[in-house]
C-alpha cells in the first residue's frame, strides 16, 4: 500500500532525525563550512540594550553586534571570499548555548558571560565587555542593596548568571525572596515596572539599557554592591581553534586600534535608539584594561 509506505518512511525519517546526534557539524571546521556555503549564521539578542537589540524598524543594532560585524568583515578578508552572506538568528538567554553547541549558530556576540561552566560547552572569544551584576529599582522603593530584598519579590532573566547568583544567595542566606525568572530582559523589566517585583537583578550595563527604554527613565535607579564581575565574550563552537584564532585576532585588532572605543562611545555615551536616550556610562577601568590587553579570560 503506497500511502502506508510513505507513512512508514516519514516516520522512520522522523525517528532517524531524533537519533541523529545534534551537532554533526562539529566535525567540519567552521571555516571550511563558511567557505563552502558562502554564508555565516550570527546569533543576536532581541532586547539586550545596548549590546544587541532591535531598533523600531526591527533591524539588529548594538555595541556587540557592531563588533560582530567587524569580525565578519575580517573573516571575509581572511578567507578571501567575494561574498559572505550573513544570516541573522535571534537567540534568547535560554537557548543561545544549545544553538551554538548544535551548530545552528556560528558566532554569537550579545551579552553572554564567559565563565568556566559555560566553557565546558562552548568556546569564548576575546572578551568584549566587563560588567557587574546589580539591581534596578524604583527611586522611592527604599531598596539600597541586596540585603534589603529579604522577603520581597525580585525578578531576573531566566538562564542568566544573575538567576543563579540570586537563587544561590536566597538559599545560602535564607532571605525568603521570591525570585521570578522572566523569559527575557524586556519581560523582566515589565515585571518590575508593573510592580510585581521591587527589584530587577541583572548586569549593570543591561539595566542602564532597560532604563533607556522605560517610559519614565527618571523613575529608576541602579543600586547595590556588584555581586560578581563578569566578562562578556562572543560564543563559538568548542574545539575549533582555527576559527577562534581569526575571531580573536579581529576583536583584538578592533580594541588596540581604538575602533572599539569609538564603538563604545557611540553606544554608551551618545543618544541611542529607540528613544534617543544617552546611557552616560563612562568607560570603566576594567574595560580600559581589556582594550589595552585583549584576552579571553573569565573572571571566575
Amino acid at each position, binding site marked *: *500500500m*503506497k*500511502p*502506508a509506505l*510513505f*507513512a*512508514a518512511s*516519514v*516516520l522512520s*525519517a*522522523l525517528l*532517524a*532525525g*531524533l537519533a*541523529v546526534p*545534534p*551537532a*554533526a*557539524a562539529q566535525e567540519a571546521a567552521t571555516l571550511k*563550512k563558511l567557505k563552502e*556555503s558562502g*554564508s555565516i*549564521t550570527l546569533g543576536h539578542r*532581541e532586547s539586550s540594550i545596548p549590546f544587541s537589540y532591535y531598533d*523600531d524598524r526591527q533591524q539588529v543594532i548594538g555595541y556587540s553586534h557592531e563588533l560582530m560585524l567587524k569580525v565578519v568583515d575580517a573573516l571575509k578578508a581572511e578567507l578571501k571570499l567575494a561574498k559572505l552572506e550573513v*544570516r*541573522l*538568528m*535571534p537567540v*534568547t538567554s535560554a*537557548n543561545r548555548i*544549545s*544553538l551554538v553547541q*548544535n*551548530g*545552528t549558530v556560528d558566532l554569537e556576540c550579545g551579552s553572554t558571560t564567559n565563565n568556566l561552566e559555560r566553557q565546558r560547552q562552548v568556546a569564548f572569544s576575546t572578551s568584549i565587555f566587563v560588567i557587574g551584576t546589580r539591581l534596578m529599582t524604583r527611586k522611592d522603593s527604599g531598596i539600597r542593596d541586596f540585603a534589603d530584598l529579604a522577603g520581597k519579590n525580585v525578578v531576573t532573566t531566566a538562564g542568566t548568571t544573575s538567576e543563579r547568583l540570586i537563587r544561590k544567595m536566597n538559599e545560602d542566606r535564607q532571605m525568603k525572596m521570591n525570585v521570578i525568572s522572566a523569559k527575557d530582559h*524586556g*519581560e523582566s523589566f*515589565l515585571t518590575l*515596572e508593573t510592580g510585581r517585583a521591587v527589584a530587577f537583578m541583572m548586569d549593570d550595563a543591561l539595566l542602564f539599557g532597560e532604563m533607556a527604554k522605560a*517610559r519614565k527613565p527618571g523613575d529608576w535607579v541602579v543600586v547595590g554592591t556588584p555581586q560578581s564581575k563578569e566578562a562578556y565574550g562572543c560564543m563559538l563552537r568548542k574545539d575549533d581553534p582555527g576559527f577562534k584564532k581569526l575571531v580573536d585576532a579581529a576583536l583584538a585588532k578592533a580594541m588596540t586600534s581604538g575602533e572599539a572605543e569609538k564603538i563604545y562611545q557611540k553606544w554608551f555615551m551618545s543618544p541611542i535608539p*529607540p528613544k534617543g536616550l544617552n546611557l552616560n556610562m563612562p568607560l570603566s577601568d576594567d574595560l580600559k584594561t581589556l582594550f589595552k590587553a585583549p584576552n579571553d579570560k573569565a573572571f571566575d
Partner: protein
Amino acid sequence: MYEFDWSSIPGALPLLGKGLLVTLEVTLTAIVVGIVWGTLLAVARLGANPLLAGLAAGYVNLFRSVPLVMVILWFYLIVPQLLKAVFGEGIADIRLTSALVAFALFEAAYYSEIIRAGIQSVPRGQVAAGLALGFTPAQTMRLIVLPQAFRNMVPLLLTQAIILFQDTSLVYVIGLSDFFGTAYKVGDRDGRLVELLLFAGAVYFAICFAASQVVRRLQSRGVQ
C-alpha cells in the same frame, strides 16, 4: 482606576497584520499537511498491515498525550538538526520552520482521529460494493470510502481548524511573532500591554466566533 489608552493600536496595525499572516500561514499549513498526513495515518490504522497499524496508533497516541507547548519546544530543539540532515545548510528562520513542522505533525494526530471515525461511519456495504465492482482495496478507499467519509466530517474538520487557529498563539513559547506575539511585543514596547492583550482577545473572538457560526450553519443545513 486604570486609564485606557488605545492610541498605540492604529499605528501598529501594519505590524499586527504581518503577524496575522504568520498565524494564517501556520494554520493553513497545519490544516493541509495535517489532513493529508492524518488521512494516511487513519488509513494505516484501519489497514491490514499490523505493523503499520501499530506504528500509526503509536504516533497518534504519543502526540495526543503530550501538551502542544512541549511539542513546539521539542521541534524547536530538533528541527535545526533535522533540516540540516535533510536539506543541508541554510534555513535562517528556524522559528517559523519549527512551528510549521510542529503544528503540521501535531495536528495530523488529531485529524487522523476525526478521519478514522469518518471512515468508520461509512457503511460496510459500500466497501463490499466497491470490491464487487472490481475495484482494488486502494481504489475502493480512494474513490468510494474517503469521499463519503470527508463529506460527513466537514463540520468536525472545520471545528478542529478553528481550535488550531487559536492554538497557533502558543508559538509564543519560541518567540515567533505571530498575531499574538506581535500584539504582545507592541504592548511591551509602548507600555500598553493591557490594551494590546484585550485587543488581541477581541480580534481572535471576532474571527473564531464568525467562523464557528459558519460551521454551525453548514452543520444545520446538512452538508450530506
